């Protein structure tokens, strides 16, 4: 992979399983990707495919019956001149001191619901200052200065008034801005945004995305952006990971994903968005439903809905295949062994 020194986070074959009373849910089942500083990785996929769980794993805040059972999450931290330190987040205790020092300082996260992600009991300022005072050795006054500064950065008018305001008195857009201000208050190198604009109206959505792009430039930070909205992806992504039932089925840069998708799921996903150019084209939907997590299909989990399914697809699980340095697919169609065998059958 090109310019390795820009890599911020490397996720390797990550597996997160939920051990519920009804059985084990393989919510994330072998996910691999990396995030570079200054770049945005978008994760897309249908509801329940494991996007949020993956994102939470980066901060070790996966919900209770869930556990990281396998794989690695490595954070690369610049250490002085030309020296890079490897930090294994996946090995950290979820409640330990080590991961708490990472949270909010090096990796920040903003969530989908600006309405409920801030506590209505404390002022915006209080909640931002809390983060600042937790990770830096400043006094209350300095923390307040910083909070005011951050609120200004994220485009909140009259920060000196908003800082003492309670979140429930702000609009959704304002709240999300405040969330961003809070997330960025300690200059993190990675910002995770889990559907940060889903709950906002279209105009506000555009403003927030512009803001994030601007801030990314200023701070040279990596962004992991989770969304359902392929329009947003087109706007901000550098790289895209398409997920299906706990797997990254295709991973590549934005141009390849949009212009030359290889995985049948990516292809149908792209076909399911209406094109402005096409006059009366029938909108294609992906056939069938996402299967229940407890009845995961055998073989390739996508095969029951796949238009290009082969009989082998229900028998063996695909592995990740690199089509080129920057394009990986998780599909048996591209598996040389399978191709050979098929040819053998035909002859």
């Amino acid at each position, binding site marked *: 992979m090109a310019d390795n020194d820009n890599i911020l986070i490397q996720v390797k074959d990550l597996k997160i399983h939920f051990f519920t009373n009804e059985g084990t849910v393989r919510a994330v089942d072998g996910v691999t990707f990396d995030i570079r500083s200054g770049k945005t990785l978008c994760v897309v996929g249908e509801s329940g495919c494991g996007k949020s769980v993956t994102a939470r794993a980066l901060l070790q805040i996966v919900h209770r019956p869930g556990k990281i059972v396998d794989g690695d999450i490595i954070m690369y931290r610049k250490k002085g001149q030309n020296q890079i330190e490897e930090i294994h987040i996946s090995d950290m205790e979820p409640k330990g001191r080590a991961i708490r020092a990472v949270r909010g300082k090096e990796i920040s996260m903003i969530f989908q619901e600006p309405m409920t992600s801030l506590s209505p009991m404390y002022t915006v300022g209080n909640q931002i200052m809390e983060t600042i005072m937790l990770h830096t050795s400043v006094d209350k006054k300095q923390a307040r200065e910083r909070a005011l500064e951050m609120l200004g950065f994220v485009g909140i008018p009259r920060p000196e008034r908003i800082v003492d305001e309670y979140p429930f008195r702000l609009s959704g857009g304002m709240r999300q801005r405040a969330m961003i201000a809070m997330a960025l208050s300690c200059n993190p190198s990675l910002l995770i945004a889990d559907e940060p604009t889903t709950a906002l109206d279209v105009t506000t959505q555009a403003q927030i995305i512009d803001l994030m792009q601007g801030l990314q430039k200023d701070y040279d930070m990596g962004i992991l952006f989770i969304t359902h909205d392929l329009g947003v992806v087109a706007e901000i992504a550098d790289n895209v990971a398409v997920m299906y039932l706990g797997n990254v089925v295709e991973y590549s840069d934005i141009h390849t994903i949009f212009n030359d998708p290889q995985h049948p799921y990516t292809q149908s996903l792209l076909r399911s968005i209406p094109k402005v150019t096409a006059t009366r084209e029938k909108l294609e939907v992906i056939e069938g439903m996402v299967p229940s997590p407890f009845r995961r*299909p055998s073989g390739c989990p996508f095969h029951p809905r796949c238009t290009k399914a082969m*009989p*082998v697809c*229900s*028998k063996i699980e695909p592995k990740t295949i690199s089509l080129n340095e920057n394009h990986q697919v998780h599909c048996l169609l591209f598996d040389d062994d399978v191709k*050979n065998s098929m040819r053998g*059958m035909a002859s």
Partner: protein
Amino acid sequence: MTINEIDRALADRASGDPASESDVRVEVATQWQLMWWKFRKHKLAMFGGALVLFFYLLAIFVEFFAPVNYTTYNEQYVYAPPQMIHFFREGKFGPYVYGYKFERDPVSFKKTWVIDESVIIPLRFLNRGDSYKFWGLFNANLHLVGPVNAEDPFYLLGADKSGRDVFSRIIYSARISLTVGLVGVFLSLTIGILVGGISGLVGGRVDNLIQRLIEILISIPNLPIMLALAAMVPLTWSTLSVYFMITIILSLLGWMGMARVVRSKFLALREEDFIMAAQLDGVPRVRMITKHMLPSFLSHIIASITLSIPGMILGETALSFLGLGLRPPVVSWGVMLQDTQKVAVLANSPWLLFPAVAVIIVVLALNFLGDGLRDAADPYQ
């Protein structure tokens, strides 16, 4: 992955085995089924449910389960202590209890009954004993268990001040105490559905006013009011009238919770997402009501009914215990507990507290059952 595996897979296709299809079929269960599955997992609720069922069966067949009638007394055995039932005699099945002898307490010089292990009173299951009119319908004299010799004293849980069998009276009380709960709850359910329904359906100012009133009624301590009302019931009234009056008083002060549940359900039903979803899916109206609204509504009502019965039972017990509820000769757990008000009596015959054990078990069982039902009422959570 080996080539062999792939080949086998391809061969499977040839033999027409669509292994993939069975994997993704989504099973559609009715809402009742979902609730039942969820309820079944709640072990404590299942246990509570079994207990409740047992007690109500007991209440139906009291005459059979009680060794003697509740009015049967024997002045000779006043305050006789409980006997322990033994099942095997000389290695063979032969249930019996020990008899009593009179003893003078060396300190207080009071005469008391004590167990006399030299006297053996044989028992018989499915015994012919006191005759009764079952449900006022037909004469019978069959009892689950009783002394072979009808004159022998048989007091499993001791005797009271008139030498009546506490055990039999507890069983007879189950009928009164449990039905007071049931009738009271249905009365308050009626009021609740009426008021809550109006509140939820009419809405607006009426709703507001009703909610205010309910708030006020809830903020009043209800025992004094209940006692005040109960104290007004004339002494001359027949036992049946008193019984109904007490139930009405209990339900008058217990309907508010029910009305709130009904109202919130009405409001929720109007808005609920799944109804919207069903409408969008084009599900016919009738099916929508029977498949979605009714189960949701009923299950919540059933859960709150179950959770209100204990309050009624405890209320009746408290009223009767204070002597302002049901009156002898009617026998309920509260009426029985009246005897324990004199501490001297209680200290010498603590078995008079056994009716309270029955109350506690029933109330616990109903609470367990109700909690389970309430959880199961939201099968999607």
